[in-house]
């Protein structure tokens, strides 16, 4: 019997190694797997590369991981917060964290490519800009493009709305964001889900992440994101 529901955070994070590349879902305050980030902090892995859209804000989530010195490098599109100065800013100014800026769509597509077995693809995005300096380029069908490579994670941290024991997932409104893409792109995909439901409770036509992409699910009914 397939049962991906794990009892606690220690089990959820078992085996994460130092130096891991960690894909962290969420956009703004919505769909952030903060409980899993906390679990990763507890677990103790260091020297992490974090791939996320933002660099965290406030004191929770990614900021806590950075505050504790666990993050060597951040790969993201927008390391800036609406809510004022961040711990990332502090570390960045002090030269204590590496940063790789990737256009948001290229970031999403590089992970989609990793999940979909596409080792590399051409895209017009970023051609002729600082962010693609040194990348292979060519004109295809009249448009200059750059070559971008698949971006894999060792671990993906995903926030879902509902999960079953096969690991099938649904999301809520804009909570979907990067989560389903990241779920496909990592060797180990761990999910925190607001709801854990019986097998068959999710509509087969409306499952966004089929269970094949999911390794472990922890039930974390934390309620709504902060407004």
């Amino acid at each position, binding site marked *: 019997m397939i049962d991906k529901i794990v009892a606690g955070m220690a089990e959820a994070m078992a085996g994460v190694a130092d130096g891991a590349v960690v894909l962290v879902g969420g956009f703004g305050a919505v769909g952030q797997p903060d409980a899993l980030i906390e679990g990763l902090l507890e677990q103790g892995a260091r020297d992490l590369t974090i791939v996320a859209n933002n660099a965290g804000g406030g004191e929770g989530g990614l900021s806590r991981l950075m505050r504790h010195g666990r993050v060597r490098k951040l790969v993201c599109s927008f390391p*800036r917060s609406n809510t004022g100065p961040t711990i990332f800013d502090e570390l960045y100014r002090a030269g204590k964290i590496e940063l790789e800026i990737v256009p948001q769509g290229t970031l999403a597509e590089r992970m989609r490519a990793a999940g979909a077995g596409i080792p590399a693809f051409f895209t017009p995005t970023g051609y002729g800009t600082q962010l693609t300096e040194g990348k292979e380029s060519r004109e295809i069908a009249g448009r200059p493009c750059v070559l971008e490579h698949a971006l894999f994670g060792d671990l993906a941290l995903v926030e879902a709305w509902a999960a079953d024991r096969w690991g099938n997932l649904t999301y809520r409104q804009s909570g979907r964001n990067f989560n389903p893409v990241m779920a496909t792109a990592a060797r180990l995909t761990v999910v925190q889900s607001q709801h854990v439901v019986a097998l068959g409770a999710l509509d087969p036509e409306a499952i966004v992440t089929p269970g094949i992409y999911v390794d472990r699910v922890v039930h974390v009914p934390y309620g709504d994101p902060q407004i």
Partner: protein
Amino acid sequence: MQESKPLARTAMAARLARDIPDGWAVNLGIGIPTLVADYVPVEREVLFHSENGILGMGPAPPPEAIEPWLINAGKQHVTLRTGGSYFHHADSFAMIRGGHLDLCVLGAFEVAENGDIANWATGGNETAPAVGGAMDLAAGAKQLWAIMEHTTKDGRARLVRRCSYPLTALGVVRRVYTNLGVFDITERGFVVRELIEGLRLPEAQARSAATLLAD
């Protein structure tokens, strides 16, 4: 001679909104572009797209009706119009990159007469650079309109021959809305489509660093 009065940001947004036809799918960047949505009458069905996986965004809800799970790319609370849909980030940018949006409106630091746009970095080192979805949007939408103040606060022109700031995308801007007027980018460069009341071409030209051609 009557003094001309540059448009306020809201008036710039309203001016641009007039040019968006019924039925278009549109992505509005953060900043002034976001204001545009407020000036599109609801009976005109414009499909607003948000990078984080929404098509058919509606206006901001009143505080008592906020849906905590529903934000736009600027991380502001929004609503979903009847007929809207959700999707994930890769599908969202496939929509952008695949040329399915009729229009993207971006703020800018500079727009050049060859259609180049610089809107993501000023080259300073004080803070980390942040690009978000700007490069994908600029390269992907069917057409790109820029909206910005005509000059910087200290009077430096933003309509330029060539951008001095780091580029967002090359040769993509079709039209620029500023607080002084509306300017198309053509093979010949900037062409004035409209100037605010009381402003004459030589005055607009004096505040620009590229040639403005009469329509």
